[in-house]
């Protein structure tokens, strides 16, 4: 661990701080010097995917070195490491302590997380840390739109993104977001991402928060009909339909037999395929089920 090594990590850290986006790509080193990164106009930072190992090892050696335990040094070494190894909980914990002692500024840290989330849109630890910070910041300072936009972005970047939709559920609850407005946003989002069954699962979650009646379920089924007319080969649409039926069957008031028979009729209008066959098998099972013969 030499001074030059520390300068390298410091340099990387300040590049990460200044840049608006980060990416990993292979860069060519020469005999004379190794290329660790390439920075363009303080906007775009490219980290060399071929030189990950020495940087990670250096960061770890600094993070756990007796001589580099000052707050500003830990801020630097963990910032760099987390770009490379985002799931390293211990490094996030170090940053939590730095944030509590006000070495790290909340707004700057949220910005850092924004950029990292573009790089690692499904990182569980990143989202957990973000929620922890938002709780530190206090409920009135959190920007609902910013968080919802971040959820949209990460959900689009990574298909069926569990961590992103979990964050969204938390935001809705924590900030008491209006469910009807959220249902409308979700409808628009699904129009462009109709194969995303996590998006549909979230929709069902929103519905379950409302006072449900047969009309509401019927409207959802109609919307699903319209989609199935064009996209009958998308599994997500069929699974959502199944979920709606399960949801409907939760109410005592609904005549289950009538509901299931009506369903069996209505899917006859849709072109038959692998999913529709599976779905009608389920409906028939639910109709005839005595609780024992669920599947043969």
């Amino acid at each position, binding site marked *: 661990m030499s001074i030059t090594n520390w300068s390298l990590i410091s340099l990387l850290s300040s590049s990460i701080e200044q840049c608006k986006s980060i990416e990993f790509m292979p860069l060519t080193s020469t005999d004379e010097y190794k290329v660790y990164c390439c920075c363009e106009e303080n906007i775009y930072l490219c980290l060399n995917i071929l030189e*990950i*190992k020495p940087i*990670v*090892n250096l960061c*770890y050696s600094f993070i*756990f070195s007796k001589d580099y335990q000052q707050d500003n040094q830990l801020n630097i070494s963990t910032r760099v490491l987390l770009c490379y*190894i985002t*799931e*390293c*909980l*211990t490094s996030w*914990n170090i940053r*939590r302590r730095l944030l509590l002692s006000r070495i790290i500024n909340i707004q700057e840290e949220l910005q850092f997380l924004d950029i990292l989330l573009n790089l690692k849109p499904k990182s569980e630890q990143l989202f*957990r840390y973000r*929620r*922890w910070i938002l709780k530190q910041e206090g409920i009135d300072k959190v920007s609902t739109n910013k968080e919802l936009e971040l959820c949209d972005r990460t959900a689009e970047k990574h298909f*069926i993104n*569990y961590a992103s*939709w*979990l964050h969204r*559920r938390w935001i809705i*609850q924590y900030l008491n977001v209006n469910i009807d407005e959220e249902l409308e946003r979700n409808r628009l989002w699904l129009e462009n991402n109709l*194969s*995303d*069954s*996590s998006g549909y*699962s*979230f929709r*069902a*979650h929103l519905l*379950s928060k409302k006072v449900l009646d047969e009309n509401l379920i019927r409207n959802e089924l109609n919307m699903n009909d319209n989609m199935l007319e064009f996209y*009958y*080969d998308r*599994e*997500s649409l069929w*699974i959502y339909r*199944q*979920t709606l039926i*399960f*949801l409907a069957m*939760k109410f005592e008031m609904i005549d289950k037999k009538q509901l299931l028979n009506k369903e069996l009729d209505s899917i006859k209008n849709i072109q*038959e*395929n*692998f*999913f529709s066959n*599976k779905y009608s098998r*389920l409906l028939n099972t639910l109709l005839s*089920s005595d*609780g*024992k013969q*669920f*599947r043969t």
Partner: protein
Amino acid sequence: MGTPQRDVKVNYSEVQKDLLIEKHCAFLIGYGRSHNTYEYGATDYLRMSGIYWLCTCLDLLHSLKLIDQEHIIDYIQKCYDKNSGGYSPCPNHDPHLLYTLSAVQLLVQLNRTDLIDKQSLCSYIKQLQQDDGSFIGDQWGEIDTRFSFCAVACLKLIDSLDTIDIDRATNFIMSCLNFDGGFGCIPGAESHAGQIYCCLGFLSLVQRLDNLDLSTRNMLAWWLCERQLDKSGGLNGRPEKLPDVCYSWWVLASLKILGKIQWINREKLSKFILASQDDETGGCSDRPGNIPDPFHTLFGIAGLSLLNTYDENIIRKVNPVLCMPEYIIQKLEIKMQLL
């Protein structure tokens, strides 16, 4: 007719059909020794679980003796955090409930429970339980049903389940049950095969599976066996995801707890797991053709064990709740509920 489901194409006429036991053992042992490689440093943050995957898999393959057990015991003790009573994944790292379970599983497996400070371990776990019965994984505190499972599994292995409030812990698990019959990581979160395993495992260990009524059990088992993909025969963890060998564990073990493992097409799944072996290096990957790792190797072998594809002389029987060799669970006389 016949719309394709999101799946991978496996050319079953060309893939590996035999179980490569010796190669897997060599792969696993080599992994434990690869201290100089990048992969080794990059996985520091979960190393304790890595060692558990490796040792459990070797044990299932009757080959635990091939590894330096003293070295591992030494490592575990270096990861013990006296202040909290928990274990970290790697020396210098922070302790966490996830790695505490791995450490306890290892010490039980290596027959060194004498090294566990039961009292501090119990108080460590107890202070992670929240008022609503849920568990946080560490002092920074996010709640997850995975942590509930880790807590009761640890306590069960040291015969101290009464340390925590089981009624409230059970109520929390039940509050994570969704209307599709699945479980998520917190109330209202999307159903996920991994979380379902944790919740069913929890209910099995505290012997409260009766909380699930008949129709919920059926619905849940339906959801689980829908995870088997038609073409490849592999299992996914959620709808529309690609098949992944590790779900051969999470899904199968859950179905085993529910007494419905026969709902899975055994032959097709066995073929998929065997096709995911790397016939050059040994080890299993997430799906055929990818790079193998100890995580998928364990869950592939453990899946084959649950499917009874091979005789016990080849793969030992695995316990479906604790993912440890059954002979150890029998020896300790640990009781759990299976439907």
